[in-house]
């Protein structure tokens, strides 16, 4: 299945939040580290709820985290 045309800034946002680890982000949003890694690498598109949780973890808006990259 081709990757969806959705880019994300999770890696940069983690860096800007004190090098937050994937495990720390995963704990904040109630997911596994592997799922965060899959989202970050654009291998898995999260649900809307999970996307909001990620954005809230960074204190950012949804579009600051996820962009439609077509």
């Amino acid at each position, binding site marked *: 299945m081709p990757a969806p045309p959705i880019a994300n800034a999770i890696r940069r946002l983690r860096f800007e939040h004190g090098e937050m680890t994937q495990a720390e982000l995963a704990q904040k949003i109630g*997911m*596994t580290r592997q*799922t965060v890694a899959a989202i970050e690498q654009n291998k898995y598109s999260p649900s809307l709820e999970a996307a909001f949780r990620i954005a809230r973890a960074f204190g950012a808006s949804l579009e600051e985290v996820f962009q439609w990259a077509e």
Partner: protein
Amino acid sequence: MSYREKIAWISIVTILTIWGYYCVRALPALAAGTGDVGDFVGLFIGCTILSVVVQVALTVVAALMHPDDAEARADEREAMYDLRSSRIAYLILSTLVATAALASPVVVAASPTLFPADPLASAVLVMGNLILLSLIAAELVRAAVQIGHYRRGA
């Protein structure tokens, strides 16, 4: 490797070793009509108990390695993998069980030649083993599809 991927591997390894052993022991004897019903039932019960014990023991070991993941509910990605693999496994299981049911007249007709002393038990044994093989195949596919998803990460 995540906790739930380990669980899928445990399932595959347990099935291949314990139920593989069952198949190697039981199926040739069943096809040849050797052994008696008690042997097959004993082998089945032994493999079932061993399978449960080994799966529980290995799952406890995996849980000790990932205590947080073991206590947590599956997240949405893991739940999706579980649903996808279960759907495929269900299709395989229903197809194989339906095939076994359609084959049952042939099984009943052929079974007296397997164990002439007890044709009814023969038919039950053969049908039971066909259904058991269907369950084994479906569970193998379920775990393999899950692992495939976890490996690809998508």
